[in-house]
């Protein structure tokens, strides 16, 4: 039976009709049309779907839209302000932290959560943090460099 969910996404109040089984990522992509959040594996492993819910990184393919009722959600589309990239997005561009770009939204959202928890992460800490984000192109090296630079830029 469809129900209405309401939440704040990228600073805007939104609501929509969902089924109880509708995933948060489906609500974001299909109902709101915010397709920057990707579905990669759909099995909670790859992290392409990472968004922030109430300030914490979560896998939006492993959360029901109904569970996000009333929450404050931030997606990749909510990072740039007035056409200016977020420092972490800029760092990914500058350090060539992507090739095909599919994993990038999740990588960037995870990276920002890392820096919230650890302002000056070491290379090892960055690599550990990316356990739940899988990239099949760049082999992580430039992603790690980009995150280190992004952390400095966010300071």
């Amino acid at each position, binding site marked *: *039976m469809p*129900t209405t969910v309401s939440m704040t996404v990228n600073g805007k109040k939104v609501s929509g009709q969902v*089924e*109880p*089984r509708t*995933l948060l990522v489906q609500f974001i992509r299909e109902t709101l049309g915010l397709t920057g959040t990707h579905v990669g594996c*759909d*099995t*909670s492993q790859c*992290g392409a779907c*990472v968004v922030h819910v109430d300030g*914490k*990184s*979560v*896998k939006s393919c*492993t*959360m*029901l839209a*109904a*569970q996000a*009722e009333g929450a404050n959600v931030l997606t990749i589309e909510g990072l740039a302000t007035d056409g200016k990239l977020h420092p972490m997005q800029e760092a990914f561009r500058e350090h060539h932290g992507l090739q095909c770009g599919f994993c990038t939204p999740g990588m960037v959202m*995870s990276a920002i*959560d*890392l820096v919230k*928890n650890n302002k000056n992460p070491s290379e090892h800490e960055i690599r550990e*943090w990316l*356990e*739940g*984000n899988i990239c099949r192109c760049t082999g992580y090296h430039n992603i790690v460099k980009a995150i280190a630079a992004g952390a400095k830029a966010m300071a």
Partner: protein
Amino acid sequence: MYSFEYQKAGSVADAAKAATGEAKLVAGGMTLIPTLKLRLAQPSKLVDLGGLKDLVGIKAEGGGVTIGAMTTHAAVASSAEVKKAIPALAALAAGIGDPAVRNRGTIGGSVANNDPAADYPAACVALGATIVTSKRKITADDFFKGLFETALEEGEVITAISFPAPEKAAYMKFRNPASRYALVGVFVAKTKGGVRVAVTGAGEGGVFRKKSFEEALGKSFAGSALDGVKVDAKGLNSDIHASADYRAHLIKVMAKRAVDAAK
């Protein structure tokens, strides 16, 4: 996913009342939602504990800690109280899943699910924890019954888990290189009442205590005390990831590392 009804519980009593028949409780959902997506379960209703703020939080009590059932792994891993009283428990929480999973997954959900490769059951058993529910208090030794089986009855909700502080403890796990779940995880605790050793990931019936290790370590709390103790592969899992013999070998290796790392 098959379709289901959804209800947000307003209180523990509310959740206990609703969680009957084919209804299922959902805490962080880090196991249940993937299970539903694979259509391995078909509950009629999900009763969401997510709004129950009084189940979230960590209290230092009598030298140990009491952790609310809806406390996330990330919160346990970063808790000053847990790090002080039982650093091994904070380290265990920091090693579950990945950061995004630790932000949603809860201790109550993990313990209630009793996955044979989950980390928390080993901590509960080795530390002699008490599982507090909406109805009663259950010792960890009595709580874990087998694969995905616990002493929980219909309509019974875990509200908190109390861990007494050990003198020393450590958890060591050998991760499956792909899934990162424990192929074998060993939690060793030196407590006032003696040494307790719990093994996860390896047993056909889920978490179990390794009594022969406990006896040897009771005489001498050093990794070398286990050198002469044989580990029988009987009753251990054998699958594509590891044979029972290999798991038996790993149990001793991980136990020795845990003893040597205990603090």
